Each structure stands twice: as structure tokens, then as C-alpha cells.
């Protein structure tokens, strides 16, 4: 194994790990150590994941029967709204960047911490502040506008707790912005000597691209929500009675919310590249194209938002422009899927839990991405907009894609973060259960949607009954798959085998440190001389012509 960098590390036991630097609550919630902040975020987003999941559970129970009365229409509206708000802003957008990103980016570049550690802590406290507003909103009965807050309903007609919901998302948006500023500065300014841009691991590229999007998109959301609050308090902006345009709200909202979906997928793409390279023992195929593709997705992602508004009243000219750009952005994503597949080719694949999650990602992201192309086509979208087809599409990417990658990354770096090994067979079971449960839940929704089942309705026509039963049943399996890791990962924290510095025998600077790492990460700043993923000589693999001669199975009679 060729070493990527040389830096003598302290033997385990010399320096206390970051987990042992203080045990009080204050030492955790006021810590500026990026590793502790990552754990704070991980706990926070897990809590919200299960709250958002609870809302989904109640929805799927309601949808088990076509004319069910488990919840009322008003309650159902609040359920799907809170599910969306919580899952998007309090789980997915922060997930990988603030947990795995915070923990690993400084280590992967050979730094002691992020560029602005106090700002990092401020970001987490802003997340907590936004969370408090959202809990207040939940206690106040929740919001019923849809996670999209469309006007004029949200500003003029809804009687729900719109102000606290908008305030909560506004505040957590600033958490996002400051994290983005921090990560961009960190990657530009704190790379170890010799670590040029094209020697960076793809996970760092992923977080960097994500941070660009976070920084440039989120402020527009912040202002849009401020304007919703203003209009609710009597200052007309989008109100057509006074000359405003509700579609303007949609332009502003989607200018953020489309790039937001790239905030949710780019870090996942970074994680998948790391897992596939390590668990298949291969250099990433087309490394530069992978990095450039992530940057292209980040930039192009800002030019396609109108595809959410094909039926909102935009001009046909605008429809065509946005449709064309939406087709263009499929290209870099497709390049990445081809390159991941090519990376697996002739690899020595280890089918551990991280690789199972990664393989699940490849399939599910591909389905989600292809169905996105259907939606980019205006005539098709006119038919399926507002149906379960759209819901299935984005869940395939955000859940089948991002959540699978998050779980994969969590397992892959669990030994580094906690110093413990998890139980492999339980983890594989969870990964497979998740893949099966996910498909059972969401594939029927493609069919139901295509056949016309509308979204955001608490009852539906009887012809969709079968698909909904499949979907709700699948959701039970999926829920089990999400709950399982709580048990075996929790178990490992106490009784798991202690992990060495590099249990996967991977390249990458984070594996140079002890597991778990000390507060300073590295005793001395490493110096980098090699490319990443140095698992074999570049451009090699045994070809057919180099095979040794073989004997037939039997002899001549």
C-alpha cells in the first residue's frame, strides 16, 4: 500500500481522543472542535428525522384506505407540510455537510479544524434556534401551506402558524449559509502542503460544490420568507389585488429550492465516490470529470428552477428555456453514474454495509434521475405535475439517493468517528431491508401518479387502492430499516470492537489518525505527494492478453 502522506502519528493512548476532552454538557455544546460540532448536528438531525418520519407514518396510515378518516383533511395538510419542512430543512439539507462534512473535511485536507471554528459553533446554535421556532410551530398545530409556502394561501388565507414556520426556516437558512462560507474558506485556505485541487478526495469536492450552492441560493430563500412574513403582517408584495404577482413568489422560492435539491445530492455523490473507491479497491474512473461534473451541477442547478412552474402560468417561451436547461443538467449526473460503474469494473468488491448502500444508491439515483428527465419534458410534466409521479421521483433521489449515501457514509466512517466497529451482519441486513422497503414504498407511487393520483389529497379514488396498500406496507419495512441502525450502532458504542486507525485499509488523510482522532487531528501537518485513491498504478488492470496459460479440466483419453 503506497502511503499518500508521511506524518508520524502519536500511538493510541498518547493523546486523548476528541471524545475524552471534557465530559460535561457545556464542553460539548460550547465546543468549537469541528468533530464535536459534527456530533451535535448528528444528534439534532436524527431527532428531526424521526419527527418528520412520524408525520410520514401518519400520512401512510391515512392513505391505506381510499376514504379513510384516520386524520381530517386539515390535519393531513399539516402533516405533509411539516413532513416536507422538517425533512428538507432540518434533516436533508444539513445532513451530510454538517455531520460527515464537518467531521471529515478538515481531516481530509490535513487541517486542525475548519477555517472559522467559532462561526461553526454559531451555525449549530442557529440550527437550534430555527428548530425551536419549528417546535413552537408544531405545538401551535403546524402549518398547512405545503413546504412550498405558495402565496396567496400562505400570506392571506391560511390560519395556521405560518409565521413561526417561516421564521424557523429563515433562521436555519442562516445556519446553512454560514456553514457554506466556512467550508468554502476551509477548502481554499487550509489545504496541507502538496494537496492541490486535483489531489483532493471527491468527498471534499462534493462538500465544496454543495457549499457554493448553499451560499448563493439560501439568501434568496431567506428574503422570500421575509416577504411572506411581511405580507402576512400587512405589506402586500405578491397580492394580485394590489398589483402583485403570485408567480413572482414561485420564481423566488424555486430559485433557491431547486438548487436546494443539489445541496441535498452533491454531498451524497461525494460520499459514494469515497465508498466505491475504497470498497472496490479502485481509483475513481475519470476523477477530473467527476470533480468538474459536481461543479457543473452546482452552477447549472441555478438555471433550471422554472421546471417546477410549467403549469403555474409562465409563458411558453420560458417553459421551453427551462425545459432545455433541465435536460442539459442531466448530463453531468449521468457522467457520474457511468464513472461510478466504470470504477467498479474489475474491482475487488467487498460487500460490506457501506458498499451495499452505495450500490443501492447507484440503482435508485439512476431511476430517480431518469424520471427527472420525464418531468423536464413539458408535455409529460403537464400530465404528471401535482401527482404521485413527482413524489416518487424526488423521493427516489432524496431518500433512495441521499439518505442511502448518508447511511453508507455513517457506516463507512463510524470506526473513525467513534473508534468502534459495528456489527457487520446486522448492518448488511439494514441496508438490504432499506433497499427493498424503499422500492416497495415508492415504486408503486410512480404508477399511481402516472395513472393520475394527485398529491397532497387526504383521500383518493378507489382505483389507486392497490398501489397505496403496497406503498404503506413498504413504508413499514422502510421504517424498520431506519430503526435497526439505532440499535446496532448504539450497541457498538458500548460493546463494539475497538477500531484501528485504518480498518478498511483505505487511502485518504483521515485514516492516518487514530480512531477516534485527537482534538488536533494531526500531530504534525501532513505533506501530500500522491493522487487520491492510490489503490493501484494508474491505468492498470490485468488485461486478457496478460493472463497466464490455463489447463483444461480433464486429460486426453
Amino acid at each position, binding site marked *: 500500500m503506497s502511503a499518500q502522506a508521511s506524518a508520524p502519528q502519536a500511538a493510541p493512548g498518547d493523546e486523548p481522543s476528541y471524545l475524552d476532552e471534557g465530559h460535561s454538557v457545556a464542553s460539548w455544546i460550547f465546543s468549537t472542535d469541528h468533530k464535536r460540532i459534527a456530533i451535535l448536528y448528528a444528534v439534532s438531525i436524527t431527532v428531526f428525522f424521526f419527527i418528520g418520519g412520524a408525520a410520514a407514518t401518519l400520512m401512510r396510515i391515512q392513505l391505506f384506505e381510499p376514504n379513510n378518516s384516520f386524520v381530517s383533511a386539515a390535519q393531513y395538510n399539516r402533516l405533509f407540510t411539516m413532513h416536507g419542512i422538517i425533512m428538507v430543512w432540518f434533516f436533508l439539507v444539513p445532513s451530510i455537510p454538517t455531520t460527515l462534512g464537518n467531521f471529515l473535511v478538515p481531516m481530509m485536507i490535513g487541517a486542525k479544524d475548519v477555517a472559522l471554528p467559532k462561526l461553526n459553533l454559531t451555525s449549530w446554535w442557529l440550527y437550534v434556534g430555527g428548530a425551536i421556532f419549528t417546535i413552537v410551530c408544531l405545538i401551535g398545530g403546524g402549518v398547512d401551506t405545503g413546504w412550498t409556502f405558495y402565496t396567496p394561501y400562505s400570506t392571506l388565507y391560511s390560519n395556521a402558524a405560518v409565521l413561526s414556520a417561516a421564521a424557523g426556516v429563515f433562521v436555519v437558512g442562516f445556519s446553512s449559509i454560514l456553514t457554506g462560507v466556512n467550508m468554502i474558506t476551509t477548502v481554499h485556505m487550509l489545504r496541507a502542503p502538496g494537496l492541490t485541487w486535483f489531489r483532493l478526495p471527491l468527498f471534499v469536492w462534493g462538500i465544496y460544490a454543495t457549499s457554493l450552492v448553499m451560499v448563493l441560493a439560501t439568501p434568496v430563500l431567506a428574503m422570500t420568507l421575509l416577504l411572506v412574513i411581511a405580507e402576512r403582517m400587512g405589506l402586500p408584495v405578491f397580492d394580485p389585488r394590489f398589483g402583485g404577482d403570485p408567480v413572482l413568489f414561485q*420564481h423566488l422560492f424555486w*430559485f433557491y429550492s431547486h438548487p436546494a435539491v443539489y445541496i441535498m445530492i452533491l454531498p451524497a455523490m461525494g460520499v459514494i465516490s469515497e465508498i466505491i473507491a475504497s470498497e472496490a479497491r479502485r481509483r475513481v474512473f475519470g476523477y477530473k470529470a467527476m470533480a468538474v461534473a459536481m461543479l457543473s451541477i452546482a452552477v447549472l442547478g441555478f438555471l433550471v*428552477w422554472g421546471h417546477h412552474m410549467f403549469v403555474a402560468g409562465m409563458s411558453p417561451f*420560458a417553459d421551453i428555456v427551462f425545459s432545455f436547461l433541465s435536460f442539459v443538467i442531466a448530463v453531468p449526473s449521468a457522467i457520474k453514474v457511468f464513472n461510478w460503474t466504470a470504477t467498479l469494473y474489475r474491482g475487488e468488491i467487498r460487500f460490506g454495509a457501506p458498499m451495499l448502500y452505495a450500490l443501492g444508491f447507484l440503482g435508485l439515483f439512476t431511476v430517480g434521475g431518469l424520471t427527472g428527465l420525464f418531468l423536464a419534458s413539458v408535455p409529460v410534466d403537464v400530465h404528471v405535475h401535482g401527482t404521485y409521479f413527482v413524489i416518487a421521483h424526488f423521493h427516489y433521489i432524496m431518500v433512495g439517493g441521499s439518505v442511502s449515501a448518508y447511511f453508507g457514509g455513517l457506516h463507512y466512517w463510524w470506526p473513525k468517528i467513534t473508534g468502534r466497529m459495528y456489527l457487520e451482519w446486522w448492518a448488511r441486513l439494514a441496508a438490504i431491508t432499506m433497499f427493498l422497503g424503499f422500492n416497495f414504498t415508492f415504486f408503486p407511487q410512480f404508477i399511481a401518479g402516472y395513472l393520475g393520483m394527485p398529491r397532497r389529497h387526504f383521500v383518493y379514488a378507489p382505483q389507486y387502492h392497490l398501489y397505496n396498500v403496497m406503498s404503506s406496507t413498504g413504508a413499514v419495512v422502510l421504517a424498520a430499516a431506519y430503526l435497526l441502525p439505532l440499535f446496532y450502532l448504539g450497541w457498538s458504542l458500548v460493546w463494539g470492537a475497538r477500531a484501528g486507525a485504518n480498518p478498511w485499509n483505505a487511502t485518504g488523510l483521515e485514516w492516518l489518525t487514530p480512531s477516534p482522532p485527537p482534538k488536533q487531528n494531526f500531530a504534525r501537518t501532513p505533506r501530500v505527494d500522491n493522487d487520491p485513491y492510490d489503490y493501484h498504478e494508474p491505468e492498470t488492470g490485468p488485461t486478457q492478453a496478460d493472463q497466464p496459460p490455463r489447463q483444461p479440466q480433464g486429460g486426453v483419453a
Partner: protein
Amino acid sequence: MTRRQWKQVVATPFAAWAALALGIGLTCGYALMGASPFKPAIALAIAACQAAVSAIVFMRLDRASALVRFAAVSGVLWLSFLFILSFCDYLSRAYPP
């Protein structure tokens, strides 16, 4: 204070401020001038020039690296995406506002 320091610390910023004040005068004058054409465009163009002077002299973009300069213009560039594509919708609508 040396002569060089006077120029660097006081004179250069003062000259920039004089340019800003001139801009204020011009933009008010043009705005108050009766039915003159392109009023909003001229006012915004003057504001943009003032912003450039402020950014270069007060915010030291004259001495900054290419990376910092790119960061400085990136906000405006991205904002242009919002304006251009939104107005692409508005300007091509068949119905009057």
C-alpha cells in the same frame, strides 16, 4: 505621518469619496431634471459606478487576489441569473401586467 502615509491613508480615500459625492450630485441632478429619458437606467448606472469605486478603493479590491475579486463579483453574477431568467418569463408573457 509620512508623506506616503498621508497619500495612502487619507488622500486616496478622500479622492474616492469626492467621486462618490460627484455621483450623488449627478444622479440627483438628472433625476430632478424634468422629463429626461432613461431615468432609472442612468440612476442605477451611477449607483453601480459608485459601488465600483467603493469596492475598489474602500474595500481594497485594487490589492486583492483574483480569487477574492471573483468572490466579490460572484453575487452579482448569480443575481443576474435570477433577473434574466425571471424576466425571460415576464417579458414573453402575452397578457398585460
